[in-house]
């Protein structure tokens, strides 16, 4: 309650002092001169109020400015309350030059206050007093004055004059000057509306361009123009992190950690996500020529090989026959279509099963001859356009000879010319396709990677808590069991309780000596009855004194004798009614009981 009152009083004091404060706005920057690759900290400090939104800083060409966040401070010095908030912005220069952060409007309690504009310079190399964290600044006098000269992305395609669906290799390269630390380079992204694309492979190499060495990440992929005309590829953007040092200015002093030693020792490094874009490329996409186009051409462009087989050769009417086709090579495999097998009077055709990998596609299809007059499975042909020679090519496989015998009596279909699948199924085991089961619709129970119950601290704590509970319960049960079964143990526990309660009663009745002595006598009889394990009727002063002497408790033999004598005197002979004597007697009883407790 006292604490609540204190807090309420503090709140009142705070409220009144806030009203009394003057509001002041200051802008500050961590360095007036900095190098490319280092980040600056711009701090806007508002003294006298904390309820102030951070004003936006207008975009400035050559600077990447981001709001970092607020920090607040409250102080009470000599009873004077003050509060302030500091809004921090991180400034990352991209070009050299002299910049100005303009005056900003800060709205405090409905009033508009203005900061002073701040100028600073960004140089190509680091100032002597503040070494760059990104790496040593280039010593070359020709050092780049634009960070975009130190980090850039190129997009290259060896062929600009291509056909629709032709595989066009594309290389996207991220160039980074060795004095800049980058990490977590991600796969490039580009608008791919008019292009299909395959997997991206990447490798890291060093390259030298115009005498300047660069670390590069080279992404290689293949694209497939989806339509004719002039198509624009890119620009491709590559996101990655740049490690920069924040030149931090602590708005609240910094104390002993504000000196340059600690600033450099505890360098405030920041990962800043950057996404660089390449130039766009124009591709002239030509249509596939109509002249010489085979009838079975379905749009395959590239260099391919086609293989096909049908078997077994010896079958009965109604037996399944497996047709296998494989197309391999380089080109837009996803656009490749297999020669189609149409149902005819000779064959019943089932749905095909297709497989594909990076360099080949294969198909398996079950067909069933429905007549013994069938002598062969017809030829299969596959045509494609090869952009390297500008010609169409065709491979024909088959026809595949068959020896179809009449179906045996047991499995012969009732109407050979119109066999139903159900009839075939009843005659022969239906040839079932095999493949993996489809993906799952929902993600199920998502959990942190590697999180297992047995690694959880809570699980271990739960088991430990249960063990402690179990031990406590077991000890409790054993204790109560002993009280129930061990009379001496139970009496000993009870005697201590009797002594405690009896003494309390005696202290209350010490001013009434007659009642006091009566209770004192009863207490001693009860106490020693429990202590000696004898019934109260079988115990009196001589018995107790004999026991005390027998056990060697000579220390209390005399006081015990005196106490019993005083009790007898008061109870039966109307002895001393003086409370002072009763107090003396109480002390003796306390001494006796304390001794007995200790000896027990």
């Amino acid at each position: 309650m006292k604490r609540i009152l204190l807090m309420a009083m503090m709140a009142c004091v705070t409220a009144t002092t806030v009203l009394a404060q003057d509001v002041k706005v200051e802008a500050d920057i961590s360095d007036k001169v900095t190098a490319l690759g280092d980040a600056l900290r711009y701090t806007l400090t508002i003294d006298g109020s904390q309820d102030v939104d951070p004003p936006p800083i207008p975009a400035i060409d050559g600077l990447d400015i981001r709001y970092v966040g607020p920090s607040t401070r409250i102080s009470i010095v000599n009873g004077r309350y003050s509060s302030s908030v500091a809004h921090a912005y991180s400034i990352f220069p991209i070009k050299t030059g002299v910049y100005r952060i303009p005056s900003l409007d800060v709205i405090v309690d409905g009033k508009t206050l203005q900061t002073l504009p701040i100028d600073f310079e960004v140089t190509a190399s680091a100032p002597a007093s503040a070494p760059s964290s990104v790496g040593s600044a280039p010593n070359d006098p020709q050092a780049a004055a634009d960070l975009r000269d130190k980090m850039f992305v190129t997009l290259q395609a060896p062929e600009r004059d291509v056909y629709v669906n032709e595989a066009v290799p594309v290389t996207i390269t991220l160039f980074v000057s060795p004095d800049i630390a980058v990490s977590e380079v991600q796969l490039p992204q580009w608008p791919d509306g008019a292009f299909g694309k395959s997997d991206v492979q990447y490798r890291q190499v060093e390259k030298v361009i115009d005498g300047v060495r660069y670390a590069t990440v080279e992404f290689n992929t293949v694209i497939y123009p989806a339509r004719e005309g002039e198509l624009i590829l890119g620009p491709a953007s590559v996101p990655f992190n740049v490690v920069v040092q924040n030149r931090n200015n602590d708005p609240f002093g910094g104390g002993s950690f504000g000196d340059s030693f600690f600033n450099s020792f505890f360098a405030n490094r920041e990962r800043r996500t950057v996404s660089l874009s390449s130039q766009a490329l124009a591709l002239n996409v030509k249509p596939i020529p109509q002249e010489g186009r085979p009838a079975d051409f379905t749009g395959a462009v590239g260099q391919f090989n086609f293989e096909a087989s049908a078997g077994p050769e010896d079958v009965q009417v109604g037996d399944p026959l497996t047709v296998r086709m494989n197309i391999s090579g380089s080109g837009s495999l996803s656009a490749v279509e297999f020669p189609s097998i149409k149902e005819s009077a000779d064959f019943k055709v089932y749905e095909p099963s297709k497989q594909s990998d990076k360099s080949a596609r294969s198909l398996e299809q079950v067909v069933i001859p429905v007549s013994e007059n069938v002598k062969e499975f017809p030829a299969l042909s596959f045509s494609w356009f090869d952009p390297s020679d500008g010609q169409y090519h065709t491979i024909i496989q088959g026809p595949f000879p068959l020896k179809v015998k009449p179906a045996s009596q047991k499995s012969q279909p009732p109407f050979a010319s119109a066999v139903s699948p159900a009839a075939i199924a009843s005659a022969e085991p239906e040839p079932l396709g095999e493949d993996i089961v489809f993906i799952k619709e929902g993600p199920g129970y998502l959990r942190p990677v590697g999180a297992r119950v047995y690694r959880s601290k809570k699980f271990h704590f739960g088991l430990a808590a249960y063990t402690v509970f179990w031990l406590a319960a077991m000890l409790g049960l054993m204790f109560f069991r002993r009280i129930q079964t061990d009379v001496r143990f139970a009496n000993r526990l009870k005697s201590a309780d009797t002594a405690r309660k009896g003494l309390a009663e005696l202290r209350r009745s010490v001013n009434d000596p007659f009642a006091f002595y009566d209770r004192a006598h009863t207490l001693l009889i009860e106490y020693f009855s429990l202590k000696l394990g004898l019934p109260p009727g079988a115990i009196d002063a001589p018995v107790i004194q004999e026991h005390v002497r027998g056990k060697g408790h000579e220390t209390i033999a005399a006081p015990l004798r005196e106490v019993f004598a005083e009790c007898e005197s008061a109870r039966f002979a109307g002895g001393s009614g003086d409370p002072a004597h009763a107090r003396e007697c109480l002390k003796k009883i306390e001494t006796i009981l304390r001794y007995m407790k200790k000896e027990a």
Partner: protein
Amino acid sequence: MRTLSLSLFLICALSFGVWAVADDSQAKGDFTKAGELYRKGDYSAAIVAYEKILDSRLESGALYYNLANSYYRDGQIGEAVLNYERAAELIPRDRDLKYNDRYLRSRYPDVRPYQDKNIFEKAINKHIAFYTLDEMAAILAGLFVVLGLFVLAAFYGRWARSMVMTISVLMVVAIGTYAAGFVFKIADIRNKAVVITKASANFEPRPKATEHFPLPKGAVVKILKEEDGWMKIRRWDGQLGWVSAENIQRIEKRP
């Protein structure tokens, strides 16, 4: 009695609340998008999308299963086997997973599961493959709690000593068996790995050492030792060899 109830509640609450609830709405959205890419047949993009969810440090049996399917469709058998194995640690009784795993191994006979020679090991493997580690931990904890309560009740109710001893010994044996299986499973997961790129197991841990036997993609091996970028492995038939760590990947993902 009140104290007992309160304690039990506390234990249950702690046991079930072992993980903080993670914000998985983003991951669920990514999972749906990855499924759409798979349906369109863009398996490589589906792989990237599923891996992105794993990069956000979230996992599930269904996620590994779908990722394995995508790898299989994309022709990357090693990664497919690896992710089926990882899925099996989280959803061991899933019928689709069992079917796909069996189908993949039937299509690629070189991909053989790791097999222990010892009959005892086989029996334990079959048993522990039925449960996840979490389930085994929960069963062990449950048996431990029940045993403790049983002993308390027996002591309180003064039950017949012979009956109490018999039941207690049976429960202790059950707990011991489960604990052994639990420890065995942890060690098994920790040491199991899958060959990702076709490799060979050498007699010695160096590149130009004599080749002992080839290791096809997707082969499941047991790691016995790790030394300077090389791993001593045991193949399904008990053959030992050294393989470069770049070629194999452990099934266990550490938190």
